[in-house]
C-alpha cells in the first residue's frame, strides 16, 4: 500500500473511523496532519514486521484525552516531532521504526503522519486491531511489554515522564496528567524490540484499514452497494475472518451517561417496518456489545461498527443522531485477540460483563 495523495489519506482515515468502532477520537485531526506531510512530498513508508531486525528499536505514539477537546485543538506538526526527540533522548538511543498502538480512530493516521515527518518506517500492525479506551488494552501489554517509560507532552511543550510499576497504573497516571493539562496530550510509549513486535502485535492492520476505506469509496463510485464490497473484503472464513451485517434499521433512542469519566451509552435501533425487532448496542467509548431482541449477536473484542445505511460511512459515537438510517456490521477480532489471556484484559470481563466471549461466527452461523 502507498499513501501518496489526498485521496489515499482520506481512504485511510475512513478505514480508521470504521475500525474505531465508534470511538478512538476523530481521525480528521490526524488526517490533516498526514495530508500536510503528503502534500510536501514526505510519504510514509509502511513495512511488514518481518522486515524488521529482531533487535530493532520500536515505539508507539498516541493521543490521550477527551475526543470533544481533541476537535478543538489542532495538532501542531512540530509537537509530535519534539515528543519523539525527547523520547529518544530519554531512552538514550534512536528509534528504528514506529508502530501504532491503536489502528482505530485518530492514532493510526497520526502515527503515519509522524512516520512521514521523521522518515521512519511504520510497521503494518498495531496492538488491538480496533480502538479501546485504556492504555493497557493492547496485546503488547498482555504479553509483557511495558508501556513505561511513557513520555507525555502537551501543545505548549509541558512534558512528563511516567515510570509505572504496571500498565494499569500507567493508565491512571497518564489520565491524571491529561486532565491537568486540559484533557488533550500526546504520548510516546511501549518501547519494544523488533522481535517483540513480530511475536505480539496484531499484524496487517494498517493495510486492512486502508483497504476498508478504499473499498467503501470505490463501491460508491461504481454505484454498487458499499456493503457488497465490504462483505467481499471482510468476510473471508478461509483466513479466519468473519463479517456479518447484523442489523438494518433506524436509530430510535440514544442514551448517554458519564460514569467515572467514561462515556457509557445505549443505542436502540428499530428494524425498518418492524417496531418489534430491535437491536441495542452498548458502548463504553467504543461499541462493546450488540443484542437483537435480547439475544447477544456480537461482543467485545469482536468489532461492532455502525455505518450509514446508504453510503456506508462509519458513524462515530458523537455523530449518532435520532432517526439516522444505519446498518450494524460485525467483524471478527484477529485470532490473537481472542486468546484467553487477551480476553481477560479486553474481553467481556475487562468491561465488567458477566458473560463469556462468544465469536461472531458462532453467534450468527
Amino acid at each position, binding site marked *: 500500500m502507498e499513501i501518496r495523495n489526498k485521496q489515499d489519506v482520506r481512504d485511510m482515515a475512513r478505514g480508521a473511523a470504521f475500525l474505531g468502532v465508534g470511538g478512538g477520537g476523530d481521525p480528521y485531526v490526524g488526517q490533516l496532519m498526514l495530508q500536510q506531510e503528503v502534500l510536501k512530498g514526505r510519504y510514509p513508508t509502511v513495512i511488514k514486521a518481518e522486515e524488521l531486525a529482531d533487535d530493532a528499536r520500536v515505539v508507539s505514539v498516541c493521543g490521550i484525552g*477527551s475526543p*470533544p477537546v481533541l476537535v478543538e485543538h489542532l495538532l501542531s506538526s512540530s509537537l509530535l516531532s519534539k515528543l519523539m526527540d525527547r523520547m529518544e533522548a530519554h531512552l538514550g538511543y534512536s528509534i528504528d521504526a514506529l508502530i501504532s498502538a491503536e489502528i482505530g480512530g485518530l492514532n493510526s493516521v497520526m502515527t503515519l503522519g509522524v512516520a512521514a515527518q521523521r522518515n521512519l518506517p511504520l510497521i503494518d500492525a498495531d496492538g488491538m486491531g480496533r480502538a479501546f479506551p485504556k492504555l493497557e488494552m493492547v496485546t503488547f501489554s498482555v504479553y509483557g511489554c511495558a508501556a513505561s517509560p511513557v513520555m507525555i507532552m502537551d501543545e505548549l511543550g509541558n512534558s512528563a515522564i511516567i515510570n509505572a510499576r504496571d500498565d494499569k497504573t500507567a493508565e491512571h497516571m497518564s*489520565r491524571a496528567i491529561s486532565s491537568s493539562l486540559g484533557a488533550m496530550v500526546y504520548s510516546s510509549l511501549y518501547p519494544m524490540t523488533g522481535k517483540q513486535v513480530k511475536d505480539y502485535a496484531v499484524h496487517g492492520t494498517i493495510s486492512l484499514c486502508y483497504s476498508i476505506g478504499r473499498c467503501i469509496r470505490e463501491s460508491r463510485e461504481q454505484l454498487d452497494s458499499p456493503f457488497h464490497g465490504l462483505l467481499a473484503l471482510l468476510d473471508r472464513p478461509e483466513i479466519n475472518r468473519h463479517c456479518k451485517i447484523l442489523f438494518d434499521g433506524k436509530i430510535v433512542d440514544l442514551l448517554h451517561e458519564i460514569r467515572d469519566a*467514561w462515556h457509557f451509552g445505549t443505542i436502540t435501533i428499530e428494524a425498518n417496518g418492524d417496531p418489534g425487532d430491535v437491536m441495542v448496542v452498548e458502548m463504553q467509548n467504543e461499541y462493546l456489545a450488540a443484542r437483537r431482541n435480547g439475544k447477544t449477536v456480537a461482543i467485545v473484542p469482536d468489532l461492532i461498527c455502525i455505518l450509514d445505511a*446508504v*453510503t456506508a460511512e462509519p458513524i462515530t459515537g458523537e455523530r449518532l443522531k435520532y432517526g439516522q438510517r444505519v446498518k450494524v456490521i460485525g467483524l471478527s477480532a484477529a485470532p490473537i485477540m481472542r486468546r484467553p489471556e487477551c480476553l481477560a484484559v479486553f474481553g467481556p470481563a475487562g468491561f465488567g460483563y458477566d458473560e463469556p466471549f462468544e465469536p461472531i461466527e458462532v453467534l450468527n452461523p
Partner: protein
Amino acid sequence: MQLAAAARDIRSKGLDAVAITSIFAPIRQDLEQRAAQIIRDIAPGVSITLSNQVGSLNLVERENAAVINASLMRLSRLVIDSYRQALEALNIPARLFVTQNDGTLMTADVAERNPVMTCSAGPTNSMRGAGFLSVLKEAVVIDIGGTTTDVGFLLQGFPRETIDANDVGGVRTNFSMPDVLSIGLGGGSIVDDSAATTDGLTVGPGSVGYRILQEARVFGGDTLMATDVAVAAGQCDIGDKSAVEGISSEVIDASLDTIHRHIETAIDRMKTSAKPVPAVLVGGGHVLISRPLKGVAKLHRPEHASVANAIGAAIGQVGARIKRIVEYGESDREAVIKQVSDEVIQEVIDAGGIAATVKVVEIEEMQMTYLQANAVSLKVRAIGDLAVEN
C-alpha cells in the same frame, strides 16, 4: 499586542472583512468578543464574523465556516440592500426575511451578518414547496430550472441532509445542507443536433442561462434548446409555436429521450433502494417531462409547480438553535435544560415567531468524556410560525 498589530495590518491593507476564531468559542464567547473589540478600535468599519455565531464545537470546521461567512459579507450586504430597495421601489411596506439552509427564516439583519447560513437555501425551498404542494412527506423532488435540475429527497416533509461531505469546494464545514444532486439540464439547456445521427444528440450541460428569453427559438432567437423541443412536442405553449414547426420528429424524439434519461439517472443516484418512489416535479422546467419516469411509483405535478421555490420560502418557519457546553450539578439538569430552552424560545420570538406557536423540537445532550466535571454539550432547537402583520 499581536491582535493590535494584526488590526493595524488589516487597516493598512484596506481589508473590509475579518473572521475571528478562538478555541472553545461555543462555550466561551467572551474571548472572541474581546478580540473583535480590539480590531474594531483600530480598524473601525470592518465587518467582523465571530466563529461562535456560525459554528459549533470542532475548531477546523467552525473556522472554515467563519472564513466563508466573512468572505460573503460584502456580497450579502449588496444583496440584502437590493432587496430592501426593491421593496421600497415597489412600495411594499413588509418586513424582510431570508430563508436559511434548513428551511427556516431569519430576519434580513441577521441574514446580512450570516450569509453562510443561506448559501444552500434554494434547493431547500424548492423541496419544502414541493412537499407543501403535493402533501407528500416522503418523495423524491425533481426541480427543473433554467440551467440545472436539482434532485433531492423529502423525509418527514424536510429535505434529507448530507451525512458525510459537508464539503464546500473541498473545505470541511459544519453546517447542515440538503443532500442534492445537480445536473446540467434545464429549460435553457442547448440541444446539439449537429451529429450525423440522432444517437449523437446531446441536451446540456451547456445552457444559455438567463438569456433564454432572447435566444430560444420560440422567443425569436436562433439557439435550439430544451424549451423549444418541449413546445414543438406540444408539451407546453410558450412563446411563438410557429418558430419550432420545422424541427424534425426524429430530433424531438431523441431530445426527449435524452432529457428523460438524464433525469432518470439522477433519480437513481439519489435513491436509497431499488423500490419505486413517489416523485414531485417542480420548477419552471417541469414542462420538459412528458413520459413516465423509470424508478418512480407516481409522478406528481402539483398546481403552481413552477413557483414551488417561492412557496417553500413563504411557508418558512422561524427557527433558532443554541449549542452550549453546560455543567450539571447534582440535581439541576432539568433547570439547565429549561433555562436554555427559554433562551432559545425567546430567540425565536425575537426573530418574529408567534409566541404561542413556538416549541422546542430538539434537545440533544452529549457528555464530555474523560473529564471529571459533569460537563455536557447541550443543543436545543426551537421553531415557530412567523408572525405576519396585517
